[in-house]
């Protein structure tokens, strides 16, 4: 299960971005129920009840002249003037909003004017829709959902591109410079995992040798790094990346017998210049890249689909 990388801290940023990129016309309701100025408030109340709405714009010759809201109806009920016509009692101090404005404008309008809805006018000043707070919320939810779908798709594509098939097992370990007390632990755990999963001994041994040599290489020479072991259906991959100092001449380092290890390291039985060649020898694919001041990346793979390397 992959997680969608929207952090709680940053998600308001996404919402703001959507509010600026979406326009009022993207969120408004376009099927606006209107009435003419000669309709009675009683008729309008009937429309509100039937359509479950709380405001009806009043049009005169196609132009927006006012709005009758549920508040106006309540006022009319109170004063017994339900049979008067809309033209007489409608609110005419209208706040309208332009269809081309960003949605963020509508949000500010709701804050500033405390109305429940705003008539939306097109470029020619004609009523083309109506917008309520729930229209905005609904549109935002749809947009957020679309955004998440896009992110998930991008993540899946990126993962498929970068990492290829998903491994059955993935383990990773950190290494510390000159920490010989823990050196080899990662490789031992990895080998145990292989054996537990039924890996044939000769394959487990190759993987363990490659893993151990790369691990020791980091312990002896680097300022620390990470080891990542992955078991795929058709291969075992050991990946080692350290944080420097880097190998000045990779060709030389791959030669058996070449070593820059110090006397102390040599006295422990390491640093004989056999590590990297050993790791390469047991691997079917061996990739090494090193940059001075940056670090060294090594990927050693053992294929499981050929010759004596048959697992199952």
């Amino acid at each position, binding site marked *: 299960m992959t997680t969608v990388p929207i952090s709680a801290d940053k998600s308001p940023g996404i919402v703001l971005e959507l509010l600026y990129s979406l326009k009022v016309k993207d969120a408004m309701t376009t099927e606006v129920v209107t009435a003419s100025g000669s309709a009675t408030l009683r008729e309008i109340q009937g429309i509100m009840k039937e359509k479950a709405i709380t405001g009806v714009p009043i049009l005169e010759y196609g132009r927006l002249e006012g709005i009758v809201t549920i508040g106006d109806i309540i006022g009319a009920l109170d004063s017994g003037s339900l049979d008067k016509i809309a033209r007489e009692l409608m609110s005419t101090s209208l706040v309208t909003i332009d269809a081309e404005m960003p949605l963020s404008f509508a949000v500010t309008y709701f804050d500033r004017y405390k109305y429940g809805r705003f008539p939306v006018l097109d470029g020619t000043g004609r009523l083309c829709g109506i917008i309520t707070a729930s229209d905005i919320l609904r549109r935002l939810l749809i947009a957020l959902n679309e955004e998440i779908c896009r992110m998930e798709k991008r993540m899946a594509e990126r993962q498929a591109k970068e990492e290829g098939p998903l491994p059955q097992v993935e383990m990773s370990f950190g290494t510390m410079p000159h920490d*010989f*007390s823990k*050196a*080899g*632990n990662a*490789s*031992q755990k990895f*080998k145990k995992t292989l054996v537990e999963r039924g890996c044939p*001994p000769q394959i487990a*041994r190759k993987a*363990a*040798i490659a893993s*151990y*040599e790369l691990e*020791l290489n980091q312990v002896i020479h680097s300022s620390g790094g990470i080891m990542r072991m992955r078991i795929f259906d058709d291969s075992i991959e050991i990946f080692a990346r350290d944080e420097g100092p880097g190998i000045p001449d990779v060709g030389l380092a791959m030669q058996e017998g070449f070593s820059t290890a110090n006397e102390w390291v040599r006295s*422990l*039985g*390491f640093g*004989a210049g*056999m*590590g990297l060649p*050993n790791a390469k*020898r047991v691997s079917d694919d061996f990739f090494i890249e090193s940059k001075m001041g940056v670090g060294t990346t090594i990927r050693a793979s053992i294929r499981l689909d050929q010759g004596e390397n048959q697992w199952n």
Partner: protein
Amino acid sequence: MELSHAATLTGAILVVGSAEKKISGGYTSDLLSDVMAHAKTGDALVTIQAHKNTVAVASLVGAPAIFICNNRPIPEDMIEAAAAEDIALLKTALSQFEASGRLWSAFSPS
């Protein structure tokens, strides 16, 4: 060959592990990468490298026993590591040359 027999041949004492463990040969080296490269599964490791990294190497190549030569002192953490990895540790006063020679003769009678 049972370890008890190999211990008798080399005058070694068993520091940790079972005397009934079996070895099928041996490999002698003080270079751990060399051991990694050449020791076979079932080999006893003959060395003077008395530290826990030798145990890690033995475990990775599948060596069931380590002979520490020249009576080199064996640190406590090496004994613990060997016990944890189920690898026998033996200590002998012989040099690598002598210990290897005696084991080799027993494996290759002529």
